[in-house]
């Protein structure tokens, strides 16, 4: 477990730095099993910071979501850093963004948290749909312990753990300024087990599967907005001239959108699962991302989000890249 006192203390120290604007962390949510992003400007705000197994949102989204309105005359841009509480996956997202020149290393101060894995929000809310009271969850000996309506529940960790965490290879932040607590052990597991069945299915069955999934996409673009690596100032999907995909919601356009989203994350996705968590129609988007992650690893021996000095995968090449498909 992460020492919450230490987290608050470190965050306070960071906030006290002259070059830090504010810190983004987690705080309790408004009901049930929710947690929420917290933007701390004062030491008092920092007191609210928590880190529990429910902190499953990816905060790396926020530094680039910050909106800079046009400056008024005589006003100067606030160039101070943004503090950010990062888990392993969040830190990889930041690395990837820096690698792509989306931001500079000196734009952020990272408070690293070795992450023991977080809870699958949809799963726990499905199990306890009536829980409106704000609930604390503790991880004790591979069990999640919490109280619902006066009754204590102990649920084995594996049952509630988010799918992406089960196969996470980098639970410890890969980039940080301060680290809180000890690094957690990495349990290497077959990362691509989950997509094996689908991979081995015949082509037609795969299409049937995805057809059903994409059919129900409502194109709310929650997947895009939740993804820390979808930060283009104008998304191709929103362009009207040329219009890449029509606004009509039907299988053809939905499929094109989902291909576009998945492809643009090839060699960039850091497997945080934010897209899938955000999807209101429960489309298994991570399966697409995982597949591309796997292929990229096999074809180009490349893992995204580890090295800020690496070259982006699709912006670089190796003369010896596989080309057996070329005539």
């Amino acid at each position: 477990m992460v020492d919450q006192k230490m987290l608050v203390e470190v965050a306070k120290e960071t906030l006290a730095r002259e070059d830090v604007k504010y810190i983004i962390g987690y705080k309790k949510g408004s009901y049930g099993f929710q947690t929420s992003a917290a933007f701390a400007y004062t030491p008092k705000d920092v007191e609210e910071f928590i880190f529990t197994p429910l902190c499953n949102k990816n905060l790396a989204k926020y530094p680039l979501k910050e909106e800079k309105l046009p400056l008024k005359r005589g006003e100067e841009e606030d160039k101070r850093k943004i503090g950010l509480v990062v888990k392993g996956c969040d830190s990889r997202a930041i690395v990837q963004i820096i690698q792509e020149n989306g931001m500079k290393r000196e734009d952020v101060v990272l408070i690293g948290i070795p992450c023991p894995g977080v809870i699958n929000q949809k799963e726990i809310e499905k199990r306890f749909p009536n829980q409106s009271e704000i609930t604390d969850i503790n991880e004790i000996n591979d069990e999640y312990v919490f109280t619902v309506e006066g009754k204590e529940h102990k649920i084995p960790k594996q049952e509630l753990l988010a799918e992406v965490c089960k196969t996470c290879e980098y639970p410890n932040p890969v980039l940080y300024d301060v680290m809180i607590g000890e690094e957690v052990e990495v349990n290497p597991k077959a990362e691509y087990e989950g997509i094996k069945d689908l991979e081995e299915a015949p082509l037609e069955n795969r299409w049937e599967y995805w057809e059903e999934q994409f059919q129900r996409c409502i194109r709310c673009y929650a997947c895009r907005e939740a993804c820390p690596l979808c930060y283009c100032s104008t998304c191709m999907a929103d362009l009207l001239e040329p219009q890449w995909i029509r606004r009509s919601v039907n299988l053809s356009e939905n499929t094109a959108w989902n291909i576009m989203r998945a492809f643009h994350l090839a060699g960039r996705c850091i497997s945080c699962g934010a897209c899938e968590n955000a999807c209101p129609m429960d489309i298994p988007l991570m399966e697409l991302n995982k597949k591309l992650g796997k292929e990229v690893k096999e074809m180009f021996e490349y893992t995204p989000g580890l090295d800020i000095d690496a070259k982006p995968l699709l912006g670089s090449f190796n003369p010896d890249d596989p080309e057996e498909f070329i005539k």
Partner: protein
Amino acid sequence: MEDFEPNIIGFLCNWCSYAGADLAGTSRIQYSHNVKIIRVMCSGRVNPMFVINALQQGADGVLIGGCHPGDCHYQHGNYLARRRISVMKKLLEFMGINPERIKMTWVSAAEGRKFAEVVDEVTAEIRKLGPNTKIRRKNEW
């Protein structure tokens, strides 16, 4: 399937493949007429979404032509294209869309004959796959 004439969109690079196609024409080589050519400056210009868009708009296959490795007019555009298309093919395959609908070839400006052969071969293969129905726009309102 015999009388199905596939619609194939060819994205050919200005410096090699397009010139190769031109040579095939001026040399009066007979080859399949199924490939509709769109000239691009470099195979690296081919955004993989071009391919998806072509399939959406009714193409049964897409052919991307570039210079031979090392010969790119822009040094390495074709290498970049190769990476992108190979990743896109894997994605389509996983989604159940036959990746064989996307073809790629290296044709130099001197290879008019090769161009004709590739087009014949690609057309035959796409014809075997039949019409693309999977992500095609219905255009019914």
